[in-house]
């Protein structure tokens, strides 16, 4: 079944990426990857294929991600400055091995969902990481623009500019970014009063994409449960797969749309029930709203504000001038 799907996808350009990577792991990919990275990319995670790498100690996607990003975080300060007045320090530097949740040292983990559907027990493995939203509040609302959505869809935190205020985590419906205190630019500014480290999360292996390589998790998945390609193609593929398995899609509408499409044979309502929201362990609430969308209409009026001001000035200016002329005429007549 898996082979059939792969051969079907192979007819599409995005599949050249996956198959190419599978066949020539570690070798530069065809030019189509580079071409694809110029446009908006998206990933597809097929939960009917993911088995959580039951035969391995750590799922392949997690191991690959950890290996690629192992040197990403610089050495943490020996004495992490105590923030004032709230004394929250988040230090994962001595727990780098943790893989059952998101941490600054672990950008992807696999949730095991034990579901009872139609009287039958079913186990679904759900890799969780940043969804790379279409309009990510984590990036647009960052006070220093340290977090930015790239043209290819990858939402990337620049660790050299991030102050670790964790605002991105607060506005993310899944609270994905994770903080490591004791690193980053805040140490050189006002460490006790401002900032508290650097936020870390999956960046879709943006640097690898630039080099024409696949994201580590996609490349490493032994069951080809993860794909990457142009967004339109991925969405079409997700719909076709969902139709074939009478399944469900997550990530298309959630938070205003994302660049990650999960396809599952079981409803996400049931999967979500197995995911109580905990720090570093996001839930999977179907159709979770993009809260910033509520501000969009007001923002559009703000964009029109200069024209409103001009129109009001023109109208009132004309009216006042007219009033003054009439007054003058009346005075002249009465004079």
């Amino acid at each position, binding site marked *: 079944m898996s082979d059939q799907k792969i051969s079907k996808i192979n007819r599409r350009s995005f599949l050249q990426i996956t198959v190419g990577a599978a066949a020539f792991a570690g070798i530069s990919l065809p030019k189509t990857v580079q071409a694809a990275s110029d446009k908006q990319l998206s990933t597809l995670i097929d939960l009917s294929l993911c088995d959580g790498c039951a035969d391995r100690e750590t799922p392949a996607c997690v191991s690959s991600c950890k290996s690629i990003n192992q040197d990403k975080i610089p050495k943490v300060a020996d004495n992490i400055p105590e923030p004032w007045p709230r004394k929250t320090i988040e230090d994962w530097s001595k727990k780098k091995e943790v893989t059952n949740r998101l941490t600054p040292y672990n950008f992807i983990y696999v949730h095991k969902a034990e579901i009872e559907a139609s009287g039958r027990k079913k186990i679904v493995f759900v890799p969780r990481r940043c969804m790379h939203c279409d309009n990510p509040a984590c990036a647009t609302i960052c006070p220093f623009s340290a977090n930015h959505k790239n043209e290819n869809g990858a939402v990337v935190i620049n660790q050299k500019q991030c102050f670790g205020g964790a605002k991105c985590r607060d506005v993310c419906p899944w609270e994905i970014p994770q903080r490591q205190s004791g690193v980053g630019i805040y140490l050189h500014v006002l460490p006790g009063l401002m900032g508290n480290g650097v936020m870390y999360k999956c960046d879709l292996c943006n640097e690898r994409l630039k080099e024409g390589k696949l994201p580590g998790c996609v490349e490493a998945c032994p069951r080809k449960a993860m794909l990457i390609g142009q967004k339109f193609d991925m969405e079409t593929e997700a719909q076709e797969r969902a139709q074939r398995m009478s399944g469900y899609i997550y990530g298309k509408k959630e938070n205003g749309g994302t660049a990650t499409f999960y396809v599952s044979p079981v409803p996400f309502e049931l999967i979500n029930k197995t995911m109580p929201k905990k720090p570093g362990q996001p839930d999977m609430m179907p159709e979770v709203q993009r809260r910033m969308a509520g501000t969009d209409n007001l*923002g559009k009026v703000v964009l029109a504000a200069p024209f409103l001001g001009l129109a009001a000035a023109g109208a009132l200016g004309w009216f006042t001038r007219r009033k003054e002329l009439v007054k003058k005429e009346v005075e002249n007549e009465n004079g």
Partner: protein
Amino acid sequence: MRMADKILTEENLVSRHGIIELIEHWAIATSGLLLLLTGIFELPVAKRYYFIVVPGLGWSADFITSLYIHYAASLVFTAAGIFHLAYHGLRNEKGLIPRKGDMAESVTVIKSLFGFGKEPPMPKYLPEQRLAYVGMAFIMAILIISGLIKTYKNIYAPDMSLTIVLWATWVHNIFFILFFLAFLAHMAAIALRPNWPMVRGILTGNVRLNYARHRHSLWLAEIEKVEVVLVATAQEIVLPPIEAEPLPKPQTLQQEGLMPATDGETAKANDEVTNEKIASDSKD
């Protein structure tokens, strides 16, 4: 000077700001303060610094709520700022535009505020007010432009060029600090005793006549000149050129029959007297 500036003799006041100027000022002031506050709350400070425990500020750690208020305030701020420029520009009201020598004169005025030297006679606005106005207008303009870019990015283009986003963000942040400093300077200026009478002006539109006569004598002279011209125009008389010497007070003018009388018959009688007087003055 505004055309509507006039002496309210009975109330012992001078009309300094019209309703439009008052609305502009307070719209920009209140929205500007809200922008400062919600701008601070757009930084992750509310939880860390326990603003959230202050009664009435429970919302301060919710960045989306702050954004709603920030947008609403920026709508007023932007529209009022652009309105101000366009409206007064159209009406050619340039009293707040700096003039040559304002910098040196500002130093003289500021020194006089602290008891060093004497303040020179002033027009409607003080030289440092004119300089501060341009400074504040520049800060506001940059905040508005960078804010509009950020708003556009939030709604339509989250993947806008990172260079533009970084420029807009950092310029907005730096000018936010400058705006805060300018606001503090503004508060410091009105905290100085000689400036207190102007607070009444920005609250009610009027300042005390004796304050205006004492401090803004050039402005008063200008008003009085216009009033005399208006009276003369209404009476279709050509006045002789007005010399630089101080003008008589309106009360004196009325006593001398140069101001219009209140009832028709007296007015007619006065007109004849006035015409004769003006004619004889012209011969001089």
